[in-house]
């Protein structure tokens, strides 16, 4: 079914299902360090639905931001104007993130490997990249110091790769025990929400396992979209479809971010590809 058909029938697109699945994982009252793009959308959806007291922290220094519309950048005035506190960048990283005050770090990725390590730096060789991506930003220390990490990424073999071209941020390194060896204080990634399902680390090996499929998606589709031999949980769950309220709130939020004069049409596919690659 096409995206347009899904929307016309009031059903969720795969991207919308990804946002809903990620949003549901956030609990009311948690403190969430939010990256821009898909994570920010999901976190604001959670705040608009089941988690009104979710505390959003943006690396621009906005603590407790309550934006009425989705920010285009992490430093939009809307975030500062609605925040409980606005602090400097040294303060947000040194006083708030580093000591472990944040419950959930919420990251996007251009590449993810089987141990939930993330690349947002380059595709190809570092010195002669085929695609130069934005780089680390706050992600390495968010991945290190938050109590837990959630990751969002579109499911494709280009994104879910057997080997990263660059390890920008550490999930579980080379496997179980690596975070402890590296001295990383947080528990690391506990959930990877994609447009096909949800992956969670195996408690023994730390390898990502498909634990949940979105409605209408098959195991074969998820495996074909993964660049390694994806393991599937024995008690594989099927995601509840988005409720009418979740879908309504998500579409309302996304409508707040469209450029003026581009009402209704949404974004061009190519543009969307760029966004998902870069964040």
């Amino acid at each position, binding site marked *: 079914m096409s995206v347009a058909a899904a929307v016309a029938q009031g059903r969720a697109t795969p991207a919308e299902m990804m946002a809903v699945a990620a949003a549901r994982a956030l609990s009311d009252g948690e403190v969430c360090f939010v990256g*821009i*793009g898909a994570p920010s959308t999901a976190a604001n959806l959670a705040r608009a639905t089941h988690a009104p007291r979710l505390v959003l922290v943006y690396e*621009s*220094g*906005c603590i407790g931001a309550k934006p009425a519309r989705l*920010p*285009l*950048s*992490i*430093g*939009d*005035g809307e*975030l*500062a*104007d609605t925040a409980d*506190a*606005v*602090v*400097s*960048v*040294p303060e947000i*990283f*040194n006083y708030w*993130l*580093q000591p472990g005050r944040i419950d959930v770090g919420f990251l996007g990725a251009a590449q993810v490997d089987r141990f939930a390590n993330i690349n947002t*730096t380059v595709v190809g060789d570092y010195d*002669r*990249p*085929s*695609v*130069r*991506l*934005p*780089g*680390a*930003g*706050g992600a*390495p*220390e968010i991945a*290190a*110091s938050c109590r837990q990490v959630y990751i969002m990424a579109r499911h494709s073999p280009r994104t879910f790769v057997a080997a990263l071209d*660059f*390890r*920008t*941020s*550490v999930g579980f*390194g080379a496997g179980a025990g*690596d975070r402890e060896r*590296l*001295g*990383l*204080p947080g528990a690391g990634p506990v959930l990877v929400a994609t447009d096909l399902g949800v992956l969670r680390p195996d408690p023994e090996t730390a390898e990502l396992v498909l634990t949940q499929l979105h409605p209408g998606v098959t195991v074969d589709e998820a495996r074909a979209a993964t660049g390694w031999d994806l393991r599937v949980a024995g008690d594989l769950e099927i995601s509840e479809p988005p409720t009418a309220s979740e879908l309504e709130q998500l579409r309302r939020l996304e409508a707040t*971010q469209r*450029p*003026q004069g581009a009402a209704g049409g949404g974004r061009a596919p190519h*543009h969307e590809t*760029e*966004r998902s690659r*870069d*964040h």
Partner: protein
Amino acid sequence: MAELLNLHDAVARLVRDGDTVAMEGFTHLIPHAAGHEIIRQGRRDLTLVRLTPDVLYDQMIGMDCARKLVFSWGGNPGVGSLHRFRDAVENGWPGPLEIEEHSHAGLTNRYVAGASGLPFAVLRGYAGTSLAEPGRTANLAWVDCPFTGERLAAVAALRPDVAVIHAQQADRDGAVQLWGIAGVQKEAVLAARRSLVTVEEIVDRLEPRPGSVVLPAWALTAVAVVPGGARPSYAAGYYDRDNDFYQAWEPVSRDRDRFLEWMQAHVLEAVPA
């Protein structure tokens, strides 16, 4: 004591070919007008430093002002790539661009050490990443805490030749106040040998504002009045971020010729403030 200069003279005096220049601003208060003046004056071989090089550094790189970029996140926030930055790194156009990249926490702490007059700063960061591979990242090393034995990242102090920032207000003596998202501007100014602050306006008295950053006149080199000097970025209390511009930059910056035409019309031939 800060000298009140016009933008042309301030850039001419403070920014020299080959300098290490930090033009800070975290989405908010980005000193676009000053950057455009640097482009108009044809500065070359700069080492540009900024946590979040976005459209302004894309323009300066595309106009061949920079030899090197020190940064931690290079994108057009919420939109996508910086195409002039990518063209320089991927294809060496208009010239090769050396890069030194960090995480935000790491580069921030390089400024903190510089502002503190210390040789380095420590943080819990980089561990296990490709940035931490031996020989990969300049100005990154490891130290063992003398009290706990914990292994920590050490980042060398950053001392730019000149820091350039934009603020809302200065008083008649040249003291500056900025508010809203304050980024790492205070640290950049205090770490730098020289500093230029462009401001929206001069006021008789700086009214105290919650969470503001005040830089006394004696800590600054020059102040220039440039209303709208952050556009298309924003200045809280004065004007909003022009998000449509950031979206529109995407197709302009994709194509070398279209980029050069845009710069000719909107920067090189623009009347200096």
